[in-house]
């Protein structure tokens, strides 16, 4: 008789979620070689997103939130604005499936100032800054009206202070930065709500892009609208097991986007005109979740790439006369290589193959692959997803926010993808998980021009956490030249991941500003090093998901000859003018610092569009 014994073979090792998610910010311990370390707790960031879920699977509850990294008080470092959710029906927040975290009430968006750490340490893992919550004194509404989605941070009124445009399921909000108030002894930024009929569009908007659509040197707004949804008409789409689940965008009518043109006025004057129809923007209705402004065809004007959830993406080519034309399909950037529209969520734009034009990365649903569209320089794209190494590892992930960044400063573009499902993950749900949408974020390292490898498993504890991440916002939080990350989680804590590897290589930083000293989204800088190598980057092209990232640009320098300062920077401004800078008394362009390049202060290369 054959003996019955214990089943042989080892228990399967852990490869899935490392920990159950929850509305706390417990910090995963980092290994010594990890490229990022989670410093959420160390830096005092206590923000936890509340999504208002009640078991009724309201569509909007799993779509947010975004965040903005911007210098709210003009003190030279990045502050943090985080978007909060709210209750979606008459159930009090505390009775929700995942109640608000302690200290989260009242539910409002939060502004955290970046302040120096109390103690100085040589320990590279000890952050040099901490977050100070100044929401209460900032003029930011204490109780939110509407359900928060995203934010575009930019100086819309041209007064030198960065304002905030907040997107919501209700009326969007324009918060004007009035500058710093020192009346309480401490310098604190003050905002006022200046929402008007145009900016307060009531459609469900997710991202918004600040860019100069008409080349008149002020910032216009592209507002990305999602679907016509309200709690009253929310639908349920049960899964194969008959369990309640979220529906997809096809369950609701898609909405056209909006183009709000800044009406010229004096500094501090803030008024927009809705030119969605005149521009042609409202001719396409799609469930927009991602957008980026860049000059895709190299004609000197800012175009728009729009990522639609489940319908073809849109490439709005700026015609220069106030009109935009959708050329996505012919340009090869509307659908994937098989001709299928995918569930595009996040969009990132950068030159990934070193040919000085701008390529596009899109994130999609599980069982779809990330899409890398490589630009041939004329605004024609080729789907290089499979060849890039980005396709395979993305099949089991629902990607949301994504950004290109060279985190290790090796001169090759890397990428991060925030992940989290939009349909209940059945096995997690059946195992009793309270928020069964969580997945691990992904880190891709550049291994050649336009080629990547998935290094998530080698990226340590910070990338082992399984959460419902929506946005990955890039910024140099500690001003050490490398790029750190802020992750926003749905029904979970915002996280701060400090870069531990990039600062060891020489870099130069650039800030491209207007005459008023404001960052200029859409401006691009091309740096030519002494060895002839050129790199290019654009302000604001890497916005994450419904977010705004660091407006500054950081470039690895490379060889020692480069580091000696034999560098030329050419800046293309959104109004079409081009200037160049070489190291000089005003702008040393020294490695290891951020140099501010003010429009009009460089050597004019061209004052007109090419």
């Amino acid at each position, binding site marked *: 008789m054959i003996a019955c014994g214990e089943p042989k073979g080892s228990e399967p090792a852990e490869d899935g979620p490392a920990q159950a998610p929850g509305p706390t910010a417990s910090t995963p311990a980092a290994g010594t070689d990890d490229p990022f370390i989670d410093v959420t707790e160390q830096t005092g960031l206590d923000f936890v997103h509340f999504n208002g879920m009640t078991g009724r699977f309201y569509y909007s509850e799993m779509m947010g939130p975004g965040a903005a990294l911007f210098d709210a008080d003009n003190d030279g470092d990045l502050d943090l604005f985080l978007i909060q959710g709210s209750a979606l029906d008459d159930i009090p927040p505390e009775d929700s499936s995942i109640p608000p975290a302690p200290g989260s009430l009242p539910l409002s968006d939060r502004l955290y100032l970046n302040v120096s750490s109390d103690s100085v340490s040589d320990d590279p893992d000890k952050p040099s800054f901490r977050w100070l919550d100044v929401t209460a004194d900032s003029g930011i509404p204490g109780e939110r009206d509407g359900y928060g989605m995203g934010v575009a941070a930019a100086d819309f009124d041209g007064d030198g202070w960065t304002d905030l445009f907040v997107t919501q399921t209700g009326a969007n909000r324009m918060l004007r930065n009035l500058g710093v108030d020192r009346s309480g002894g401490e310098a604190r930024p003050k905002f006022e709500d200046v929402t008007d009929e145009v900016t307060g569009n009531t459609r469900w908007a997710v991202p918004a892009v600040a860019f100069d659509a008409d080349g008149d040197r002020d910032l216009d707004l592209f507002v990305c609208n999602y679907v016509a949804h309200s709690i009253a008409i929310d639908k349920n789409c049960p899964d194969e097991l008959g369990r309640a689940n979220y529906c997809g965008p096809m369950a609701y009518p898609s909405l056209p986007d909006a183009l709000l043109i800044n009406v010229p006025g004096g500094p501090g004057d803030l008024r927009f005109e809705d030119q969605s*129809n005149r521009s042609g923007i409202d001719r396409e209705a799609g469930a927009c979740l991602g957008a980026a402004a860049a000059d895709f065809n190299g004609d000197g004007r800012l175009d728009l790439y729009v990522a639609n959830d489940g319908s073809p993406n849109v490439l709005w080519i700026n015609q220069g006369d106030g009109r935009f034309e959708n050329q996505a399909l012919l340009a090869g950037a509307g659908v994937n290589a098989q001709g299928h529209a995918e569930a595009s969520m996040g969009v990132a734009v950068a030159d990934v193959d070193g040919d000085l034009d701008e390529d596009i990365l899109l994130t999609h649903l599980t069982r779809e692959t990330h899409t890398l569209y490589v630009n041939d320089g004329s605004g024609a794209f080729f789907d290089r997803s499979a060849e890039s190494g980005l396709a395979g590892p993305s099949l089991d992930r629902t990607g949301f926010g994504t950004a290109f960044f060279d985190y290790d400063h090796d001169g090759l573009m890397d990428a991060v993808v925030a992940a989290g499902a939009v349909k209940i993950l059945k096995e997690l749900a059946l195992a009793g998980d309270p928020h069964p949408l969580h997945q691990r974020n992904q880190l891709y390292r550049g291994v050649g021009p336009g080629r990547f490898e998935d290094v998530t498993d080698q990226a340590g504890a910070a990338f082992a956490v399984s959460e419902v991440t929506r946005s990955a916002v890039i910024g140099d939080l500690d001003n050490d030249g490398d790029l750190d990350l802020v992750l926003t989680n749905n029904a979970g804590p915002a996280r701060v991941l400090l870069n531990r590897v990039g600062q060891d290589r020489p870099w130069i930083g650039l800030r491209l500003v207007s005459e008023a000293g404001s960052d200029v989204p859409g401006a691009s800088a091309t740096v030519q090093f002494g060895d002839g190598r050129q790199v290019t980057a654009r302000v604001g092209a890497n916005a994450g998901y419904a977010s705004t990232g660091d407006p500054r640009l950081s470039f690895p320098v490379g060889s020692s000859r480069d580091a000696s300062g034999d560098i030329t920077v050419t800046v293309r401004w959104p109004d079409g003018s081009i200037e160049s800078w070489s190291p000089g008394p005003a702008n040393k362009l020294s490695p290891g610092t951020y140099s501010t390049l003010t429009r009009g202060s460089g050597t004019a290369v061209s004052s007109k569009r090419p």
Partner: protein
Amino acid sequence: MPCPLRGRPGMRTQPSLRPKTSCFPIPVPMKKFSPRFQRSQIGATLLILLLAVGCGRDLSHLEPVPHPDLSTVEAGARDQLEDGKRKLDKDLKDRDDAVVAAAFGSLGELYHAYGLNEAAAVCYRNAMTMAPGDFAWPYYTGLLAQESGDLAAAEQAFAKAAELRPQSAPVRARLAEVLLLQGRPDDAEPHFTVLLDQDGFAPLAHHGLARIAAQRGHQEQAVDGFHKALELQPSAGGIRNALAQSLRALGRAEEAQAELAKKESGAVVFPDPLRERLDTLPRSAGSFLRRGNQALVAGRLEEAHQLFEQGKAANPKNIELRLNLALTQVRRQRLDDALLELKAALNIEPQNPQIHHDLGTTYMAKGLQAEAVAAFEKAVELEPDYPSAHFNLANAFGSSNQWAKSEAAARRVLELEPDHTRARYLAAMAQHQQGRRQQAEAELRRLLEQNPNERIYREGLASILSATRRVDEAVELILTGAELDQPKEEAVALLNAGAKMVWPHRRQEDAITMWRKAVELDPESSEALTNLANGLQLFRQQDEALELFTRATELDPQNATAWLSEVNLRILAGDHTTAKERLETAVELHPDHIGLANTFARLLATSFDPSVRDGERAIVYARQAYGQQATLDHAETMAMALAETGRFENAIKFQRGLVQQAQAGNDRNTLRRLVTHLRLFENRRPVRSKAP
């Protein structure tokens, strides 16, 4: 060390089906378990142990299956999965490894079909262990791995499956796709080449090879391949995008645009019985709902209908199923069936506002405005913040000329959604209808200024201008609108609406101009030709009208209006022979069209030309028309057909009834005609049309 080759001898002529770097150890490593599943395995492990003791077999080399907790799962799915587990428990006692393997595999398929992939993967691995020669289990393992994004594991598993069944084209197809997805076109190419000769796989093969050619920059070759794939599988319209990109790269932008303009998105499909089997396994309402929705979105209405019906049988209380079934019935033009579904849904959830709303839209489609109003009112009573219910209520009030109420409902929409421009338009039209034309005109002008391309705003404004005797302005507004940069269908619709608007104001020439412009804009539009022909016919330009109607039917044989108008013109002109020929074709194309049936019957019964007349056939068509719609016109035809066949008594009886009805009314002309025909029948003479 090289892997030992165990494939068939013939394999040497085919590309290797193995991965480059490993000998794909089986079981293939798959996703591992989360802590919760590790805990849940304890029970499963004990189960297997106990069963093994019971049967006296050592099954300890098998992995414990992490059966998920099914307590919260819909009964249909739970029962099916529990049955699968019970069958596994039973078959584990069997001494035959193949039986045990099949039991694990079958349960794996079920878990896989329900998306419970971790449990499915373990089942497949156990099935592979028990039946290492069965290709199905590594194949399914490969599918799972591919869906999970583990392409290396998928490649290994497909390679193993291919080794076990080298002739399997689906396996080779999957392997080729996985290789291509990994950015290895050189490895994928030979597999696609082999598939060129496999029955049903040539489209996929051409598509794959074309994609590889495009990646390599061989665009001419790619274009050729994409064309071949499309030729073999026209439904795979998604290929047109890649084709367009290759054409674009060759500088053939116009051809590329033409391909893209077709806006097709069908995927390349190939026969894959194992994968297809998975789709049909789940019997839960949720699974039928999901599949039904896919069919509905793809416009496969009959399939959607069947699937929703099956889902309803699985769970009669699933409201989403019933709502979507009703929507399918509406799209199938089965409005009464849709109403039945919605009423059944209301019996389950009487307070569900969406059901009332959908009931309202269905009543609207049936033209039952009062019922629609009641349904929408109930929906907004239950959910006062329901914008589309208020909007449809405004529409329904408008359709029944209750303009004050229509305006109020539209205003409520605007309270909820201030930028709801359609509601703003509706409010303006309601003002117009209530005589507040200045306000309406101002509102429409504002809307049109913001949205110059929006046709209905222009039409609305033109209708106000026409109603206030400013027809010149209306004409200019329409003609200007038609010049805007917009899809030609929009311009044609605008011109048609404009022509109809100005015609009653004795501006027939302007109307004809608009219809002519529409035909110029879209000479291939059967509808535009029909509209112009109708106008010309009324304007007594019969010859040109006849020519246009004929062309309209050639362009769109489904245009029954054009058929009817054409044959009527021919009959009036006395060309009954051609009319008869054309009617033969028309009724074949439109067997349910009452107008065509009645016209044919009348021609066959009354033609002056004896070679055209055919009384017996006339009765058939007359019965069809009268049976579907018992109108006076159809009844008269029936009497004429009866007389033509010599059944005068029946004809007289029929006609007397009609005369009595007409006497009750006030239409003297009709009465006179009916009496004249009655006298003919009484004199045993049929009705004859006059020769030209």
